[in-house]
Protein backbone atom coordinates (compact mmCIF):
# COMPACT_ATOMS: atom_id res chain seq x y z
CA UNK A 1 0.00 0.00 0.00
CA UNK A 2 2.81 2.42 0.97
CA UNK A 3 4.60 1.79 -2.30
CA UNK A 4 1.41 2.51 -4.23
CA UNK A 5 1.02 5.82 -2.37
CA UNK A 6 4.63 6.70 -3.14
CA UNK A 7 4.18 5.84 -6.82
CA UNK A 8 1.07 8.01 -7.01
CA UNK A 9 2.46 10.86 -4.94
CA UNK A 10 5.90 11.10 -6.53
CA UNK A 11 4.80 12.84 -9.77
CA UNK A 12 2.51 15.09 -7.76
CA UNK A 13 5.37 15.98 -5.45
CA UNK A 14 7.69 16.62 -8.38
CA UNK A 15 5.14 18.90 -9.99
CA UNK A 16 4.74 20.79 -6.73
CA UNK A 17 8.50 21.08 -6.37
CA UNK A 18 8.73 22.14 -9.97
CA UNK A 19 6.20 24.84 -9.30
CA UNK A 20 8.13 26.02 -6.26
CA UNK A 21 11.67 25.78 -7.56
CA UNK A 22 11.66 25.69 -11.35
CA UNK A 23 9.03 28.37 -11.83
CA UNK A 24 10.92 30.55 -9.36
CA UNK A 25 14.09 30.06 -11.36
CA UNK A 26 12.34 30.82 -14.64
CA UNK A 27 10.93 33.99 -13.09
CA UNK A 28 14.37 34.92 -11.84
CA UNK A 29 15.99 34.34 -15.24
CA UNK A 30 13.30 36.43 -16.87
CA UNK A 31 14.17 39.23 -14.48
CA UNK A 32 17.86 38.97 -15.28
CA UNK A 33 17.18 38.92 -19.03
CA UNK A 34 14.91 41.93 -18.65
CA UNK A 35 17.64 43.86 -16.83
CA UNK A 36 20.09 42.98 -19.58
CA UNK A 37 17.64 43.86 -22.34
CA UNK A 38 16.89 47.19 -20.66
CA UNK A 39 20.59 48.01 -20.42
CA UNK A 40 21.14 47.01 -24.04
CA UNK A 41 18.18 49.00 -25.35
CA UNK A 42 19.14 52.08 -23.38
CA UNK A 43 22.76 51.81 -24.51
CA UNK A 44 21.59 51.58 -28.10
CA UNK A 45 19.15 54.47 -27.79
CA UNK A 46 21.86 56.75 -26.44
CA UNK A 47 23.77 56.26 -29.69
CA UNK A 48 20.89 57.07 -32.04
CA UNK A 49 21.96 60.53 -33.11
CA UNK A 50 20.51 60.81 -36.60
CA UNK A 51 23.58 59.82 -38.59
CA UNK A 52 24.06 57.02 -41.10
CA UNK A 53 26.46 55.36 -38.71
CA UNK A 54 24.24 55.61 -35.65
CA UNK A 55 22.59 52.18 -35.86
CA UNK A 56 25.97 50.55 -36.27
CA UNK A 57 27.25 52.38 -33.18
CA UNK A 58 24.05 51.57 -31.32
CA UNK A 59 24.34 47.86 -32.03
CA UNK A 60 27.91 47.85 -30.75
CA UNK A 61 26.87 49.82 -27.65
CA UNK A 62 24.05 47.39 -26.93
CA UNK A 63 26.43 44.46 -26.97
CA UNK A 64 28.73 46.24 -24.54
CA UNK A 65 25.99 46.08 -21.90
CA UNK A 66 26.37 42.29 -21.82
CA UNK A 67 30.09 42.21 -22.44
CA UNK A 68 31.80 40.15 -19.74
CA UNK A 69 35.44 40.35 -20.77
CA UNK A 70 36.38 42.06 -17.50
CA UNK A 71 34.28 39.66 -15.45
CA UNK A 72 31.50 42.18 -14.97
CA UNK A 73 28.28 42.60 -16.85
CA UNK A 74 24.72 41.45 -17.10
CA UNK A 75 24.44 37.67 -16.97
CA UNK A 76 21.66 35.22 -16.30
CA UNK A 77 20.85 32.15 -14.20
CA UNK A 78 22.18 33.41 -10.88
CA UNK A 79 24.66 35.55 -12.85
CA UNK A 80 26.43 32.38 -13.84
CA UNK A 81 25.89 32.32 -17.59
CA UNK A 82 26.91 34.83 -20.23
CA UNK A 83 24.10 36.15 -22.36
CA UNK A 84 24.57 35.26 -26.01
CA UNK A 85 26.71 32.21 -25.35
CA UNK A 86 26.00 28.52 -25.76
CA UNK A 87 26.98 26.22 -22.90
CA UNK A 88 26.29 23.09 -24.92
CA UNK A 89 23.17 22.37 -22.94
CA UNK A 90 21.73 25.84 -22.42
CA UNK A 91 21.52 28.23 -25.32
CA UNK A 92 21.24 32.00 -25.16
CA UNK A 93 20.84 34.24 -28.18
CA UNK A 94 20.85 37.96 -28.76
CA UNK A 95 18.64 38.82 -31.68
CA UNK A 96 19.79 41.57 -34.00
CA UNK A 97 18.80 44.91 -32.51
CA UNK A 98 15.99 46.44 -34.53
CA UNK A 99 15.53 50.13 -35.11
CA UNK A 100 12.40 52.16 -35.71
CA UNK A 101 11.50 55.73 -36.45
CA UNK A 102 8.48 55.81 -34.15
CA UNK A 103 7.91 54.54 -30.63
CA UNK A 104 4.65 52.82 -31.60
CA UNK A 105 6.40 50.79 -34.28
CA UNK A 106 9.16 49.84 -31.87
CA UNK A 107 6.74 48.78 -29.15
CA UNK A 108 4.33 47.03 -31.54
CA UNK A 109 4.42 43.27 -31.68
CA UNK A 110 3.69 43.06 -35.39
CA UNK A 111 5.73 43.99 -38.42
CA UNK A 112 4.44 47.50 -38.45
CA UNK A 113 2.13 49.65 -36.37
CA UNK A 114 2.70 53.15 -37.68
CA UNK A 115 6.20 52.71 -39.03
CA UNK A 116 8.58 49.97 -39.98
CA UNK A 117 12.10 48.93 -39.12
CA UNK A 118 14.59 51.50 -40.36
CA UNK A 119 18.32 51.92 -40.33
CA UNK A 120 20.82 54.74 -40.27
CA UNK A 121 19.82 58.31 -39.74
CA UNK A 122 16.07 57.64 -39.45
CA UNK A 123 16.39 55.39 -36.39
CA UNK A 124 15.05 56.89 -33.17
CA UNK A 125 14.11 53.80 -31.16
CA UNK A 126 15.82 50.49 -30.50
CA UNK A 127 14.23 47.13 -29.77
CA UNK A 128 16.30 44.41 -28.14
CA UNK A 129 15.19 40.79 -27.83
CA UNK A 130 17.04 38.24 -25.73
CA UNK A 131 16.35 34.52 -25.58
CA UNK A 132 17.78 31.98 -23.18
CA UNK A 133 17.11 28.48 -21.95
CA UNK A 134 16.09 28.15 -18.31
CA UNK A 135 17.19 24.85 -16.78
CA UNK A 136 14.54 22.66 -15.15
CA UNK A 137 15.37 20.67 -12.05
CA UNK A 138 12.11 19.02 -10.99
CA UNK A 139 10.00 19.54 -14.10
CA UNK A 140 12.79 17.72 -15.91
CA UNK A 141 11.89 14.56 -14.03
CA UNK A 142 8.40 14.41 -15.50
CA UNK A 143 7.43 14.09 -19.16
CA UNK A 144 6.31 17.72 -19.24
CA UNK A 145 9.90 18.91 -19.07
CA UNK A 146 11.78 16.04 -20.61
CA UNK A 147 14.26 18.41 -22.29
CA UNK A 148 15.24 19.67 -18.82
CA UNK A 149 15.11 23.23 -20.07
CA UNK A 150 12.57 25.73 -21.33
CA UNK A 151 13.02 28.80 -23.53
CA UNK A 152 12.55 32.26 -22.06
CA UNK A 153 12.50 35.50 -24.06
CA UNK A 154 12.51 39.13 -23.01
CA UNK A 155 12.23 42.30 -25.03
CA UNK A 156 13.00 45.93 -24.26
CA UNK A 157 12.40 49.09 -26.22
CA UNK A 158 14.18 52.40 -25.66
CA UNK A 159 14.39 55.59 -27.62
CA UNK A 160 14.07 59.31 -27.75
CA UNK A 161 11.65 60.70 -25.20
CA UNK A 162 9.22 63.56 -25.53
CA UNK A 163 10.88 66.98 -25.83
CA UNK A 164 12.60 68.10 -22.66
CA UNK A 165 11.47 71.17 -20.78
CA UNK A 166 14.68 71.23 -18.76
CA UNK A 167 17.91 70.49 -20.58
CA UNK A 168 21.12 69.95 -18.63
CA UNK A 169 24.73 69.94 -19.71
CA UNK A 170 23.98 71.97 -22.83
CA UNK A 171 25.76 75.04 -24.16
CA UNK A 172 25.11 78.55 -22.84
CA UNK A 173 24.89 80.04 -26.33
CA UNK A 174 21.61 81.87 -26.83
CA UNK A 175 20.25 82.60 -30.27
CA UNK A 176 16.99 84.14 -31.36
CA UNK A 177 14.56 82.41 -33.70
CA UNK A 178 14.52 83.30 -37.36
CA UNK A 179 10.76 82.68 -37.34
CA UNK A 180 9.12 82.65 -33.93
CA UNK A 181 5.92 81.06 -35.29
CA UNK A 182 7.82 77.99 -36.50
CA UNK A 183 7.58 75.76 -33.44
CA UNK A 184 9.53 72.93 -35.08
CA UNK A 185 12.69 74.64 -36.31
CA UNK A 186 12.27 78.31 -35.32
CA UNK A 187 12.86 79.25 -38.94
CA UNK A 188 16.19 77.45 -39.25
CA UNK A 189 16.59 75.01 -42.11
CA UNK A 190 17.99 71.58 -41.38
CA UNK A 191 21.24 70.87 -43.14
CA UNK A 192 21.92 74.56 -43.68
CA UNK A 193 25.20 76.03 -42.55
CA UNK A 194 25.02 79.28 -40.62
CA UNK A 195 27.60 81.61 -39.18
CA UNK A 196 27.16 81.98 -35.46
CA UNK A 197 28.75 85.28 -34.50
CA UNK A 198 28.77 87.15 -31.22
CA UNK A 199 26.27 89.96 -31.01
CA UNK A 200 27.62 93.42 -31.63
CA UNK A 201 26.11 96.86 -32.00
CA UNK A 202 26.14 99.38 -34.80
CA UNK A 203 27.71 99.05 -38.19
CA UNK A 204 29.29 97.44 -40.01
CA UNK A 205 27.59 94.14 -39.15
CA UNK A 206 30.11 91.33 -39.63
CA UNK A 207 29.56 89.25 -42.72
CA UNK A 208 28.69 85.59 -42.79
CA UNK A 209 31.60 83.20 -43.20
CA UNK A 210 32.27 81.51 -46.50
CA UNK A 211 29.97 78.60 -47.35
CA UNK A 212 27.33 79.70 -44.87
CA UNK A 213 23.93 81.14 -45.63
CA UNK A 214 23.73 83.95 -43.12
CA UNK A 215 25.08 85.23 -39.80
CA UNK A 216 23.13 84.35 -36.68
CA UNK A 217 24.08 86.53 -33.70
CA UNK A 218 24.51 84.83 -30.34
CA UNK A 219 25.06 85.78 -26.73
CA UNK A 220 26.41 83.89 -23.73
CA UNK A 221 23.82 83.32 -21.04
CA UNK A 222 25.01 83.87 -17.50
CA UNK A 223 25.93 80.62 -15.82
CA UNK A 224 28.83 82.01 -13.86
CA UNK A 225 29.12 80.10 -10.61
CA UNK A 226 30.62 82.33 -7.89
CA UNK A 227 30.50 79.42 -5.46
CA UNK A 228 32.61 77.15 -7.62
CA UNK A 229 35.61 75.68 -5.86
CA UNK A 230 36.95 73.72 -8.80
CA UNK A 231 38.22 75.69 -11.80
CA UNK A 232 36.74 78.65 -10.02
CA UNK A 233 38.31 81.36 -12.15
CA UNK A 234 35.74 82.82 -14.50
CA UNK A 235 37.97 82.22 -17.50
CA UNK A 236 38.10 78.53 -16.59
CA UNK A 237 34.35 78.39 -16.18
CA UNK A 238 33.81 79.90 -19.61
CA UNK A 239 36.30 77.48 -21.14
CA UNK A 240 34.55 74.53 -19.50
CA UNK A 241 31.13 75.64 -20.71
CA UNK A 242 32.51 76.10 -24.21
CA UNK A 243 34.33 72.80 -24.11
CA UNK A 244 31.67 70.50 -22.74
CA UNK A 245 28.53 72.44 -22.01
CA UNK A 246 27.32 73.30 -18.52
CA UNK A 247 29.31 71.23 -16.01
CA UNK A 248 27.46 68.70 -13.89
CA UNK A 249 26.13 70.25 -10.73
CA UNK A 250 23.70 69.09 -8.10
CA UNK A 251 21.93 72.42 -8.51
CA UNK A 252 19.61 72.31 -11.50
CA UNK A 253 19.76 76.09 -11.78
CA UNK A 254 23.51 75.84 -12.38
CA UNK A 255 23.60 72.84 -14.71
CA UNK A 256 20.43 73.27 -16.75
CA UNK A 257 18.23 75.60 -18.73
CA UNK A 258 14.48 75.46 -18.45
CA UNK A 259 11.95 76.50 -21.05
CA UNK A 260 10.19 79.76 -20.10
CA UNK A 261 12.94 80.61 -17.62
CA UNK A 262 14.67 83.94 -17.97
CA UNK A 263 18.37 84.61 -18.09
CA UNK A 264 20.68 87.57 -18.32
CA UNK A 265 23.75 87.96 -20.44
CA UNK A 266 26.98 86.62 -18.89
CA UNK A 267 28.05 89.82 -17.17
CA UNK A 268 31.62 89.97 -18.43
CA UNK A 269 30.63 88.98 -21.96
CA UNK A 270 29.07 92.31 -22.73
CA UNK A 271 28.39 93.39 -26.27
CA UNK A 272 30.91 95.60 -28.08
CA UNK A 273 30.53 97.82 -31.11
CA UNK A 274 30.75 95.94 -34.38
CA UNK A 275 33.25 98.49 -35.59
CA UNK A 276 35.64 97.40 -32.83
CA UNK A 277 35.86 94.05 -34.59
CA UNK A 278 36.49 92.09 -31.45
CA UNK A 279 34.87 90.54 -28.42
CA UNK A 280 35.38 90.59 -24.68
CA UNK A 281 37.97 88.22 -23.26
CA UNK A 282 35.15 86.19 -21.76
CA UNK A 283 33.76 85.42 -25.20
CA UNK A 284 37.23 84.47 -26.37
CA UNK A 285 37.70 82.16 -23.39
CA UNK A 286 34.42 80.46 -24.21
CA UNK A 287 35.48 80.19 -27.83
CA UNK A 288 38.69 78.49 -26.66
CA UNK A 289 36.48 75.81 -25.18
CA UNK A 290 34.68 75.39 -28.49
CA UNK A 291 38.05 75.09 -30.19
CA UNK A 292 39.05 72.28 -27.86
CA UNK A 293 36.40 70.12 -29.49
CA UNK A 294 38.61 70.08 -32.58
CA UNK A 295 42.13 70.31 -31.18
CA UNK A 296 43.39 69.41 -27.72
CA UNK A 297 46.31 71.83 -27.94
CA UNK A 298 45.14 75.33 -26.98
CA UNK A 299 46.21 78.15 -29.26
CA UNK A 300 48.31 80.95 -27.79
CA UNK A 301 45.34 83.25 -27.26
CA UNK A 302 43.84 80.66 -24.92
CA UNK A 303 46.78 80.66 -22.55
CA UNK A 304 45.02 83.43 -20.67
CA UNK A 305 42.50 80.85 -19.45
CA UNK A 306 43.38 79.77 -15.93
CA UNK A 307 44.38 76.12 -15.71
CA UNK A 308 43.96 75.71 -19.46
CA UNK A 309 46.57 72.95 -19.51
CA UNK A 310 44.46 70.79 -17.22
CA UNK A 311 41.14 71.79 -18.74
CA UNK A 312 42.26 70.85 -22.22
CA UNK A 313 42.79 67.24 -21.11
CA UNK A 314 39.30 66.71 -19.70
CA UNK A 315 37.43 66.10 -22.93
CA UNK A 316 38.68 64.23 -25.98
CA UNK A 317 38.54 65.98 -29.32
CA UNK A 318 35.89 64.97 -31.78
CA UNK A 319 36.79 61.85 -33.68
CA UNK A 320 35.42 63.38 -36.88
CA UNK A 321 36.66 66.91 -37.54
CA UNK A 322 35.88 66.93 -41.24
CA UNK A 323 33.96 69.68 -42.96
CA UNK A 324 30.58 68.14 -43.73
CA UNK A 325 27.75 69.17 -45.98
CA UNK A 326 25.49 66.37 -44.79
CA UNK A 327 25.05 65.70 -41.07
CA UNK A 328 24.10 62.09 -41.76
CA UNK A 329 27.70 61.49 -42.87
CA UNK A 330 29.07 62.60 -39.50
CA UNK A 331 30.98 59.79 -37.76
CA UNK A 332 32.29 61.56 -34.69
CA UNK A 333 31.71 61.23 -30.96
CA UNK A 334 29.30 64.19 -30.86
CA UNK A 335 31.79 66.61 -29.36
CA UNK A 336 30.92 68.98 -32.21
CA UNK A 337 27.19 68.76 -31.59
CA UNK A 338 25.94 71.67 -29.50
CA UNK A 339 22.50 72.11 -28.00
CA UNK A 340 21.64 75.76 -27.56
CA UNK A 341 18.75 77.62 -25.95
CA UNK A 342 16.56 79.53 -28.39
CA UNK A 343 15.47 82.72 -26.66
CA UNK A 344 12.68 85.15 -27.49
CA UNK A 345 15.12 87.91 -28.44
CA UNK A 346 18.77 88.64 -27.81
CA UNK A 347 19.08 91.32 -25.17
CA UNK A 348 22.29 92.72 -23.74
CA UNK A 349 20.74 94.34 -20.72
CA UNK A 350 17.38 92.69 -20.08
CA UNK A 351 16.31 89.15 -19.40
CA UNK A 352 15.93 86.63 -22.21
CA UNK A 353 13.25 83.94 -22.10
CA UNK A 354 14.12 80.44 -23.24
CA UNK A 355 11.65 79.19 -25.88
CA UNK A 356 13.24 75.85 -26.70
CA UNK A 357 16.44 73.97 -27.44
CA UNK A 358 17.88 73.11 -30.83
CA UNK A 359 21.07 71.54 -32.08
CA UNK A 360 23.90 72.50 -34.40
CA UNK A 361 26.99 70.71 -35.66
CA UNK A 362 30.02 73.00 -35.38
CA UNK A 363 31.94 72.99 -38.63
CA UNK A 364 35.69 73.55 -38.86
CA UNK A 365 36.88 76.85 -40.20
CA UNK A 366 36.89 77.01 -43.96
CA UNK A 367 39.53 74.77 -45.52
CA UNK A 368 40.78 73.40 -42.18
CA UNK A 369 39.89 70.77 -39.64
CA UNK A 370 40.14 73.09 -36.65
CA UNK A 371 38.21 76.09 -35.41
CA UNK A 372 40.10 79.33 -35.89
CA UNK A 373 39.74 82.38 -33.72
CA UNK A 374 41.16 84.71 -36.29
CA UNK A 375 37.80 86.11 -37.25
CA UNK A 376 36.06 89.06 -35.63
CA UNK A 377 33.02 88.61 -33.39
CA UNK A 378 33.93 85.04 -32.44
CA UNK A 379 32.26 83.69 -35.55
CA UNK A 380 32.12 80.02 -36.30
CA UNK A 381 30.28 77.95 -38.89
CA UNK A 382 27.60 75.56 -37.67
CA UNK A 383 25.09 73.36 -39.44
CA UNK A 384 21.57 73.32 -38.06
CA UNK A 385 20.49 69.73 -37.36
CA UNK A 386 17.19 70.20 -35.53
CA UNK A 387 16.84 68.07 -32.42
CA UNK A 388 18.05 64.63 -33.40
CA UNK A 389 20.64 63.90 -30.71
CA UNK A 390 19.34 62.67 -27.35
CA UNK A 391 20.48 64.71 -24.38
CA UNK A 392 22.04 63.01 -21.41
CA UNK A 393 20.03 64.76 -18.74
CA UNK A 394 16.83 66.74 -18.37
CA UNK A 395 13.18 66.68 -17.35
CA UNK A 396 9.91 66.63 -19.26
CA UNK A 397 7.65 68.44 -16.81
CA UNK A 398 7.08 72.14 -16.53
CA UNK A 399 6.19 73.21 -20.04
CA UNK A 400 4.07 72.38 -23.05
CA UNK A 401 6.08 71.90 -26.21
CA UNK A 402 5.76 69.57 -29.16
CA UNK A 403 9.24 69.70 -30.58
CA UNK A 404 12.80 69.65 -29.33
CA UNK A 405 15.49 67.24 -28.20
CA UNK A 406 14.54 64.51 -25.76
CA UNK A 407 16.60 62.04 -23.82
CA UNK A 408 17.06 58.32 -24.21
CA UNK A 409 14.48 56.51 -22.10
CA UNK A 410 13.15 53.01 -21.68
CA UNK A 411 9.74 52.69 -23.26
CA UNK A 412 9.00 49.05 -22.47
Amino acid at each position, binding site marked *: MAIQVVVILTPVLLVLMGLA*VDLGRIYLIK*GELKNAANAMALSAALELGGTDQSTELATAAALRAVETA*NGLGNKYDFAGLTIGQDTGFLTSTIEDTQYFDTASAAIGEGEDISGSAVSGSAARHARVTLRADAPLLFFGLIPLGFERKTPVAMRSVAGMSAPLCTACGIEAIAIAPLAADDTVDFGFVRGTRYTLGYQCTGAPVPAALANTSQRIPYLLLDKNNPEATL*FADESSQLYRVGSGGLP*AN*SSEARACFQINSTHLLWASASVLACSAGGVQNSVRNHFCGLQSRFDSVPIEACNAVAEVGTLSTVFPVDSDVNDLDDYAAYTGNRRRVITVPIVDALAATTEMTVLGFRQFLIEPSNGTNVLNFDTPNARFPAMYIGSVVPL*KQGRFSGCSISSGPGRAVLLR
Partner: protein
Amino acid sequence: MLLPLLFLLLFGMVELARISYTYYALNKILTTVASYVGSRQAVNFCDDGDATVAIAKTFAITGGNDPAGAPLVPNLEPANIRIGIERYDAASDSLAACECSVTGCDLAQGGTAPGYVVVSLADGYPVRLAVPFVNFEPIILRPQIRMPYAGT
Protein backbone atom coordinates in the same frame (compact mmCIF):
# COMPACT_ATOMS: atom_id res chain seq x y z
CA MET B 1 11.88 5.17 6.07
CA LEU B 2 9.89 7.35 3.72
CA LEU B 3 9.26 10.18 6.12
CA PRO B 4 12.89 11.39 6.45
CA LEU B 5 13.20 11.43 2.68
CA LEU B 6 10.02 13.45 2.38
CA PHE B 7 11.18 15.91 5.02
CA LEU B 8 14.53 16.26 3.29
CA LEU B 9 12.79 16.99 0.01
CA LEU B 10 10.49 19.49 1.65
CA PHE B 11 13.30 21.27 3.48
CA GLY B 12 15.39 21.26 0.34
CA MET B 13 12.53 22.74 -1.65
CA VAL B 14 11.94 25.46 0.89
CA GLU B 15 15.64 26.29 1.06
CA LEU B 16 16.05 26.39 -2.71
CA ALA B 17 13.06 28.71 -2.90
CA ARG B 18 14.62 30.87 -0.17
CA ILE B 19 17.85 31.13 -2.14
CA SER B 20 15.94 32.04 -5.28
CA TYR B 21 13.95 34.66 -3.42
CA THR B 22 17.07 36.10 -1.77
CA TYR B 23 18.84 36.29 -5.10
CA TYR B 24 15.79 37.90 -6.68
CA ALA B 25 15.62 40.47 -3.87
CA LEU B 26 19.33 41.23 -4.15
CA ASN B 27 19.04 41.59 -7.91
CA LYS B 28 16.14 43.97 -7.44
CA ILE B 29 18.11 46.02 -4.91
CA LEU B 30 21.09 46.31 -7.23
CA THR B 31 18.82 47.23 -10.14
CA THR B 32 17.28 49.97 -8.04
CA VAL B 33 20.70 51.36 -7.15
CA ALA B 34 21.84 51.23 -10.79
CA SER B 35 18.68 52.88 -12.09
CA TYR B 36 18.80 55.58 -9.44
CA VAL B 37 22.42 56.61 -9.74
CA GLY B 38 22.44 55.98 -13.49
CA SER B 39 19.96 58.74 -14.20
CA ARG B 40 21.07 61.48 -11.83
CA GLN B 41 23.44 64.32 -12.47
CA ALA B 42 26.61 65.31 -10.69
CA VAL B 43 27.07 61.91 -9.09
CA ASN B 44 30.70 61.52 -8.11
CA PHE B 45 31.32 57.79 -8.06
CA CYS B 46 34.88 58.45 -6.96
CA ASP B 47 33.63 59.90 -3.69
CA ASP B 48 32.69 57.24 -1.16
CA GLY B 49 30.55 59.78 0.63
CA ASP B 50 28.60 61.01 -2.38
CA ALA B 51 25.12 61.96 -1.21
CA THR B 52 23.28 60.59 -4.25
CA VAL B 53 24.99 57.24 -3.96
CA ALA B 54 24.18 57.09 -0.25
CA ILE B 55 20.52 57.91 -0.90
CA ALA B 56 20.31 55.30 -3.65
CA LYS B 57 21.79 52.59 -1.44
CA THR B 58 19.58 53.45 1.52
CA PHE B 59 16.48 53.53 -0.64
CA ALA B 60 17.28 50.23 -2.31
CA ILE B 61 18.27 48.42 0.88
CA THR B 62 15.51 49.66 3.17
CA GLY B 63 12.80 50.71 0.77
CA GLY B 64 12.80 54.14 2.41
CA ASN B 65 15.06 57.06 3.12
CA ASP B 66 15.96 56.24 6.69
CA PRO B 67 19.50 54.85 6.86
CA ALA B 68 18.58 53.20 10.16
CA GLY B 69 15.65 51.36 8.58
CA ALA B 70 15.53 47.57 8.53
CA PRO B 71 17.10 46.07 5.39
CA LEU B 72 14.85 44.15 3.02
CA VAL B 73 17.50 41.42 2.90
CA PRO B 74 18.96 40.51 6.30
CA ASN B 75 22.40 41.89 7.12
CA LEU B 76 22.75 43.73 3.84
CA GLU B 77 24.50 47.05 4.40
CA PRO B 78 25.34 49.97 2.11
CA ALA B 79 29.01 49.09 2.37
CA ASN B 80 28.28 45.72 0.79
CA ILE B 81 27.12 47.36 -2.43
CA ARG B 82 29.94 48.23 -4.79
CA ILE B 83 29.45 50.65 -7.65
CA GLY B 84 31.98 50.39 -10.44
CA ILE B 85 32.31 52.85 -13.30
CA GLU B 86 33.35 52.06 -16.82
CA ARG B 87 34.04 53.80 -20.08
CA TYR B 88 34.34 52.53 -23.59
CA ASP B 89 37.97 52.37 -24.67
CA ALA B 90 38.10 52.74 -28.43
CA ALA B 91 41.69 51.49 -28.55
CA SER B 92 40.82 48.10 -27.09
CA ASP B 93 37.21 48.18 -28.31
CA SER B 94 36.02 47.17 -24.86
CA LEU B 95 34.88 48.60 -21.57
CA ALA B 96 37.52 49.58 -19.05
CA ALA B 97 37.34 50.89 -15.52
CA CYS B 98 37.10 54.68 -15.48
CA GLU B 99 39.93 56.13 -13.43
CA CYS B 100 39.29 58.60 -10.65
CA SER B 101 41.26 61.41 -12.23
CA VAL B 102 40.75 64.65 -14.11
CA THR B 103 40.79 62.79 -17.41
CA GLY B 104 38.63 60.06 -15.88
CA CYS B 105 35.44 60.20 -13.89
CA ASP B 106 36.32 62.12 -10.74
CA LEU B 107 33.99 65.10 -10.76
CA ALA B 108 35.84 66.59 -7.80
CA GLN B 109 38.90 66.97 -10.02
CA GLY B 110 36.96 68.10 -13.07
CA GLY B 111 36.49 64.68 -14.65
CA THR B 112 33.38 63.76 -16.55
CA ALA B 113 30.63 61.19 -16.35
CA PRO B 114 31.30 57.48 -16.91
CA GLY B 115 29.71 55.49 -19.71
CA TYR B 116 28.39 52.65 -17.57
CA VAL B 117 27.80 51.86 -13.93
CA VAL B 118 28.23 48.34 -12.64
CA VAL B 119 26.53 47.56 -9.35
CA SER B 120 27.50 44.40 -7.52
CA LEU B 121 28.05 43.02 -4.04
CA ALA B 122 31.61 43.52 -2.87
CA ASP B 123 32.10 40.02 -1.48
CA GLY B 124 28.85 38.45 -2.55
CA TYR B 125 26.01 37.60 -0.19
CA PRO B 126 26.39 34.32 1.71
CA VAL B 127 23.35 32.12 2.19
CA ARG B 128 23.56 28.93 4.24
CA LEU B 129 21.14 26.13 3.51
CA ALA B 130 19.27 25.27 6.69
CA VAL B 131 18.55 21.56 6.49
CA PRO B 132 18.38 19.64 9.79
CA PHE B 133 21.32 17.38 10.55
CA VAL B 134 23.16 18.47 7.39
CA ASN B 135 25.87 21.13 7.42
CA PHE B 136 26.32 22.93 4.12
CA GLU B 137 28.96 25.46 3.15
CA PRO B 138 27.43 28.91 2.53
CA ILE B 139 26.40 29.62 -1.04
CA ILE B 140 27.71 33.00 -2.21
CA LEU B 141 25.22 34.91 -4.34
CA ARG B 142 26.85 37.38 -6.74
CA PRO B 143 24.23 39.32 -8.68
CA GLN B 144 25.47 42.26 -10.75
CA ILE B 145 23.90 44.88 -12.94
CA ARG B 146 25.49 46.99 -15.66
CA MET B 147 23.53 50.03 -16.82
CA PRO B 148 24.50 52.78 -19.22
CA TYR B 149 25.01 56.01 -17.34
CA ALA B 150 22.36 58.37 -18.64
CA GLY B 151 23.19 61.32 -16.45
CA THR B 152 25.64 64.19 -16.69
